[in-house]
C-alpha cells in the first residue's frame, strides 16, 4: 500500500486555471472538499464569478452535444498523432476550444442529426412492415372482395382465438345500433388468431369506433399511406418498401461514414479538451477561498509530492505553495488507498477489491492471496490435463483481453493452472484415472479416492489449521501495529484457544499422550476467557461460540479434499462410461462431454471455494476492510 500525504495548495486566484490544469495533467492528487481540511481554520467555499459560471454551463452543453454527435457517427480509429494533438490542444485557451466546438457543431451537427433521424425512421419502418404484411395476409382472404366497395368502410380485427366469442357480442351490438347495414365475416387464420372483417357505411364510422372501443377490441391499424388503399394494394406497396429500405439505409450509412471519416477525430479531440475544462471548472466547488487566494486540499501518494512541487513551480511559479498538512492517526485512517504489490501479486488485487479495499495502514492481503489461492485451487483440481487446459484457456484470454479484469483473471488462472498441474503430478491424475490406466502415470504422493480418504482429509484439515493460525498471527501483529489493546487480547485468546483445541484433538485421536489433556483444557478455558473479556458480559455467551466457530473454520477446509474428490469421481464416471459403450466413437464422445463438464466445474468451483476460504476463514482473523479507493483528479483523455 502506498504511503499517502495530505497537502494543501495555496495560490492567488489569477493562478487558478494553470494550477488546476497542471494538477489535471499530472493526475496524482485526489481533491477533497475544503471542509475536510481539518484543523481550526474553516474556509468558505470558492464561488465562481458569473462569467465563469456561464462558461461552465456553455461548456457542459457543448460536451453533451459533442457526445451525442459522436454516438451518432460510426467510430473511427484516431490518427497516430492524436495524443500529441490532445496535449497541444490542452494548453490552448478555453475560448478557442469553445469557438472551435461551435464551428464543428454548426458544420455537421444538423446534417448528422438529420441522417440519424432518417435512419431511425427507416429502421423502425423495416421492423414494422413485416408485421403489417403478416396481419394483412391474415385478413385479406376475408376482405379481398369487399375492400373496393364505394361509400363503405372496412375494418379488420385480429382477436386471440380463445376470446373469439367476443365477436358474437360485437355482432349483437352492431345489429342493435346499425340494423342490417353491416357485414361481419370471421375465420380462424392460424392456431392462435381469429381474423374478422367488418364492412359498414362510412357515415356510421363514429358509432362503430365507439362500439369497438367499448368492447376493447383493437382494430388493425395500418400506416397512413396504406390505410386508404385496399389490402391487396397495401400488400404490394409493403413489398416495394421492404425492397427499397435496405438500399436507402446503406446510402445513409455511407453518408454517415463519410462524415465520420472527416469529422470524428476533430469531434473526439474537442470533446476531450472541453470535458477536461469542464471537470476543472466543476472541481472548483470543492476549493476554499479567501479574498485573493484559493486553497485546494487533497491526498496524493507521498512519492509524488516532490514531483507535484516541481511541476507547480514550473507551470505556475512561486505564487503556488504546496504545504503538507500534519494528519493525526485517526484522520490518516481516512486516507484513500492505493494498493502497491510486486508484479506477480498484482493480478490478485482485483480479487481483494472484489471484497473491499483494506483500510489505509492496514495489512494488504494481496500477496497472501496470491500465494495461497492458486495453491488451494491446485489442491482441489489436481489434474495434469485439466491444469494444462486451464493454462491454455488462460493464455487465450490473455491474448484476447490485453487489459482489464479479464486480463487479471487470466493471469490468476495461469498460477492456478500451474498448481493444478503440480498437484496432478503428486496425485498421478490425468483426466482422472485415465493417465494411470493408459500411460501408467504413477502418483508422486497419493492416489486420491478409495483408501486414501483419511490421508486427504487430515491433509486438508492440517492445511486449514495452518492457514487459520497464520491468520490469527497476522491478526495479533495487526493489533500490535494498530496499538489496539482490546483486539490484541481477543486475538491472543483466539490463538490460545486454537492451540488448546489442537492439543485436545491430538489427545483424543491418540496422537499425543494423555498428559496433554489437562494443559489442553486449561488452555481452552484461558483462551475463551481472553477472547470473551473485551466483549463484556456478552462474552460469556459469544466467547465459547467464537471458539467453536474456529473449529468450524478449520473443518471448512475439508472442502479442499471434498470438492477435489467429486472432480475425481466425475472423471472416473466419464472414463468408465467410455469403456462401457459398445461403440467407441459414442463412448469417446460421452467421455469427452463429461470431461468438458468436469473441466468447466473444475475451473469455477475451486476458484470460488478458494476465494471463500480466504474471504471467510482467513481474512476474518486479521483483515481491516473499509478503505476508500484513490480517485485522482485526472484527465479522461481521448
Amino acid at each position, binding site marked *: 500500500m502506498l504511503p499517502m500525504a495530505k497537502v494543501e495548495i495555496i495560490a492567488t486566484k489569477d493562478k487558478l486555471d494553470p494550477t488546476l490544469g497542471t494538477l489535471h495533467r499530472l493526475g496524482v492528487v485526489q481533491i477533497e472538499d475544503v471542509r475536510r481540511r481539518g484543523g481550526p481554520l474553516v474556509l468558505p467555499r470558492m464561488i465562481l464569478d458569473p462569467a465563469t459560471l456561464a462558461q461552465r454551463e456553455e461548456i457542459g452543453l457543448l460536451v453533451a452535444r459533442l457526445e451525442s454527435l459522436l454516438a451518432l457517427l460510426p467510430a473511427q480509429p484516431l490518427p497516430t498523432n492524436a495524443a500529441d494533438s490532445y496535449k497541444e490542444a490542452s494548453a490552448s485557451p478555453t475560448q478557442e476550444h469553445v469557438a472551435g466546438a461551435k464551428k464543428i457543431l454548426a458544420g455537421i451537427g444538423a446534417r448528422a442529426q438529420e441522417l440519424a433521424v432518417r435512419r431511425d425512421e427507416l429502421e423502425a419502418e423495416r421492423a414494422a412492415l413485416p408485421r403489417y404484411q403478416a396481419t394483412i395476409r391474415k385478413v385479406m382472404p376475408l376482405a379481398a372482395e369487399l375492400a373496393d366497395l364505394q361509400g363503405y368502410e372496412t375494418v379488420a380485427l385480429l382477436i386471440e382465438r380463445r376470446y373469439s366469442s367476443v365477436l358474437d357480442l360485437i355482432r349483437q351490438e352492431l345489429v342493435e345500433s346499425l340494423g342490417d347495414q353491416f357485414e361481419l365475416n370471421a375465420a380462424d387464420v392460424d392456431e392462435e388468431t381469429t381474423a374478422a372483417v367488418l364492412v359498414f357505411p362510412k357515415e356510421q364510422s363514429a358509432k362503430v369506433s365507439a362500439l369497438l372501443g367499448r368492447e376493447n377490441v383493437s382494430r388493425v391499424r395500418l400506416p397512413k399511406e396504406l390505410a386508404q388503399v385496399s389490402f391487396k394494394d397495401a400488400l404490394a406497396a409493403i413489398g416495394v418498401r421492404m425492397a427499397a429500405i435496405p438500399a436507402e439505409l446503406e446510402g445513409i450509412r455511407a453518408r454517415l461514414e463519410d462524415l465520420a471519416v472527416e469529422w470524428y477525430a476533430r469531434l473526439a479531440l474537442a470533446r476531450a479538451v472541453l470535458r477536461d475544462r469542464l471537470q476543472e471548472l466543476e472541481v472548483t466547488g470543492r476549493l476554499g477561498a479567501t479574498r485573493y487566494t484559493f486553497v485546494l486540499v487533497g491526498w496524493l501518494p507521498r512519492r509524488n509530492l516532490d514531483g507535484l512541487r516541481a511541476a507547480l513551480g514550473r507551470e505556475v511559479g512561486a505564487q503556488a505553495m504546496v504545504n503538507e498538512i500534519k494528519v493525526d492517526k485517526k484522520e490518516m485512517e481516512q486516507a484513500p488507498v492505493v494498493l502497491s504489490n510486486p508484479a506477480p501479486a498484482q493480478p490478485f488485487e482485483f480479487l481483494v*477489491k*472484489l*471484497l*473491499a479495499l483494506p483500510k489505509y495502514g492496514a495489512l494488504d492481503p494481496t500477496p497472501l492471496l496470491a500465494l495461497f489461492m492458486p495453491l488451494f485451487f491446485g489442491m482441489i483440481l489436481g489434474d495434469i490435463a485439466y491444469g494444462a487446459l486451464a493454462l491454455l484457456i488462460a493464455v487465450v484470454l490473455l491474448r484476447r483481453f490485453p487489459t482489464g479484469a479479464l486480463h487479471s483473471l487470466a493471469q490468476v488462472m495461469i498460477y492456478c493452472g500451474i498448481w493444478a498441474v503440480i498437484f496432478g503430478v503428486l496425485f498421478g491424475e490425468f483426466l482422472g484415472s485415465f493417465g494411470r490406466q493408459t500411460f501408467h502415470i504413477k502418483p508422486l504422493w497419493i492416489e486420491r479416492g478409495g483408501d486414501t*480418504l*483419511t490421508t486427504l*482429509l487430515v491433509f486438508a484439515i492440517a492445511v486449514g489449521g495452518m492457514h487459520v493460525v497464520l491468520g490469527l498471527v497476522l491478526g495479533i501483529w495487526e493489533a500490535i501495529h494498530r496499538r489496539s489493546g482490546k483486539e490484541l487480547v481477543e486475538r491472543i485468546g483466539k490463538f490460545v484457544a486454537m492451540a488448546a483445541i489442537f492439543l485436545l484433538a491430538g489427545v483424543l485421536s491418540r496422537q499425543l499422550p494423555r498428559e496433554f489433556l489437562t494443559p489442553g483444557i486449561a488452555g481452552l478455558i484461558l483462551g475463551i476467557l481472553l477472547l470473551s473479556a473485551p466483549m463484556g458480559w456478552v462474552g460469556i455467551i459469544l466467547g465459547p461460540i467464537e471458539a467453536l466457530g474456529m473449529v*468450524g473454520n478449520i*473443518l*471448512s477446509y*475439508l*472442502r479442499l479434499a*471434498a470438492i477435489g474428490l467429486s472432480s475425481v469421481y466425475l472423471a472416473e464416471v466419464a472414463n468408465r462410461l467410455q469403456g462401457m459403450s459398445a461403440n467407441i466413437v459414442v463412448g469417446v464422445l460421452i467421455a469427452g462431454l463429461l470431461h468438458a463438464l468436469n473441466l468447466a466445474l473444475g475451473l469455477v468451483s475451486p476458484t*470460488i*471455494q478458494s*476465494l*471463500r476460504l480466504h*474471504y*471467510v476463514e482467513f481474512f476474518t482473523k486479521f483483515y481491516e476492510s473499509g478503505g476508500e479507493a484513490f480517485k485522482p483528479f485526472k484527465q479522461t483523455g481521448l
Partner: protein
Amino acid sequence: MDVGVGLLAIGAGLAVGLAALATGWAQARIGSAAAGALTEKPEMFGTMLIMLALPETLVILGFAVAAMIIILLAPA
C-alpha cells in the same frame, strides 16, 4: 454383502444428501436476495459471494460426517 455395510452407506448418503438439501435451500434464498441487491449495488459482489458461500459449510460438515461413517464405522 453385509446388511450393516448397506445401512452405513445409506447413512453416509443421507448425511451428505440432507446437508446438501439444506445448503441448497439456504443458497436459493440468499441467491435470490443477492441477485436483487446486486442490481442496485453491483459493488457488493464480493460480500454477496461470501453470503452465498456461507451455507456450503453445512454440506462440508455433512461430508465430514459421511467420511467418518465410512472411515471409522465401516468394517475393514
